[in-house]
């Protein structure tokens, strides 16, 4: 599935929720699902700043695609980062860099999450794009 297809999937899922409670329950569920980061990545280096809870994010390349993993000490934050991973992981660096993550607005994440939090969200997306950029640059240097 492309990023856009995955985005549509997520948007569709969220469209089923009538109220904020359901959305949060869904995020909490997402927060309990894998992929959880390996303990060795839970260090300062992988910490994303700008969130009230701690979020660690790692990335690796496999078959030309970026695989993200993350964890957080808060469940809702973990739900959000897992949602991002669901959309962005296992995609090429180029595709990750190209997307403007429309779904974040569409599912009301920005609206319902504070600037503190959406700063956290922004930091997460920024970090993911940064990883993608690093891998893209590496690839180009190898060619």
């Amino acid at each position: 599935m492309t990023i856009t297809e995955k985005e549509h999937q997520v948007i569709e899922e969220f469209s089923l929720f009538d109220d904020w409670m359901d959305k949060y329950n869904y995020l909490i569920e997402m927060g309990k699902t894998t992929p959880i980061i390996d303990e060795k990545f839970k260090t300062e280096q992988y910490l994303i700043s700008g969130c009230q809870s701690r979020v660690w994010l790692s990335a690796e390349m496999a078959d030309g695609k970026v695989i993200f993993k993350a964890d957080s000490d808060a469940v809702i934050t973990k739900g959000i980062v897992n949602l991002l991973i669901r959309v962005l992981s296992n995609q090429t660096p180029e595709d990750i860099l190209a997307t403007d993550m429309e779904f974040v607005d569409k599912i009301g994440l920005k609206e319902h999450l504070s600037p503190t939090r959406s700063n956290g969200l922004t930091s997460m997306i920024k970090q993911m794009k940064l990883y993608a950029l690093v891998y893209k640059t590496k690839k180009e240097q190898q060619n």
Partner: protein
Amino acid sequence: MNFDVEKIRKDFPALNQEVYGKPLVYFDNAATSQKPRVVIDTLVSYYSGINSNVHRGVHYLSQQATEAFEQTRDLIRDYIHAKSNSEIIITKGATDSINLVANSFGRHFFKPGDEVIISATEHHANIVPWQVICKDTGSKLKVIPTDENGNLNLDSFKGLISHKTKIISVGHISNALGVVNPIREIIRIAHQNNIPVMIDGAQGIVHREVDVQELDCDFYCFSSHKFYGPMGVGILYGREKFLEQMPPYQTGGEMIKSVTFENTTFNELPFKFETGTPNVAGVIGFGAALEYIKKIGMPDIISYEDDLLKYALKKLNNLDYLQIYGNSQERAGVISFNLKDIHPYDAGTIIDKFGIAVRTGNHCAQPVMDFLGTTGTIRASMAFYNTREEVDRLLVAIEKVKEMFG
């Protein structure tokens, strides 16, 4: 008691609103309080009327503004029972006040090897400025330890004091835990050793009556915005003896007597420590807040708040999955807690959706969080306009959080 909370609530426009379709419960008062209408009206009439720059102006508006500004200084002096207006310095907030003292007192009095004592439960504003000046002057920061409930250990405190101690700076009431510190005792012990004491009263002034002469403290500071006044205004009380000796902090207009490129002589107290155009509107607005508080009456406010706090504690103590911090005999204004195994951020996010404003995080008091072994807490901080019904609503929200994450 002639205290009608429903009537009082009508004085605060911001309390009368809905958040997510529910009536707002504002339990973030320790961060900043709401303002009575009379404060807002004062700002409006100032900016629609006598708005102008103060001091040195001969024209009518400037005279009126200066008079109102200086009358507020009278009011503040009177409210905290300082000896003279020379001891009342207008700053931009409690943080600014502490920076002023740390810098000006520190640069003047600290020598390498000297020591400063603070406590383990301080707000960052009463930690970092001292760290910085200690580093700059080769002095050392010492910390009064606390027990697990936030009670400072006075025996250890006595042990920290030495002939090298130059100043002691402690909070009146901890903003993270709500513990009222034994500042009288601390001041008494310090003065037996001829050491001046600064009190960070950012929370203290809000929940206790303050008489700086009776307390016998050497410095006391607070912010207008936490005490029902406008933002951007802080107060520093300082004993004249020390203020006289201390060099100016910030420099520029207003605070000087004469300037040549070679030499500048500084103005008298309190102006020596006030430079630049002051926040005239904010100061006059704070005057209105003080008048309002005086009208309601601090004794009534305190007894109402204490009662409300006890009610909330009793209710919260019934929930066995809650961990409540700061279980001290003397507490005020703040209840800090966590739901066991639930991140405060998760809890706060859900509580917010009930229209209830609590704060989550380390409350700018990371060391005490580290000590308690948590990255943060949920803090419900109350004012005299909060009610038992609001506490009940918080309980409902907490139960929902437990249900969602438990």
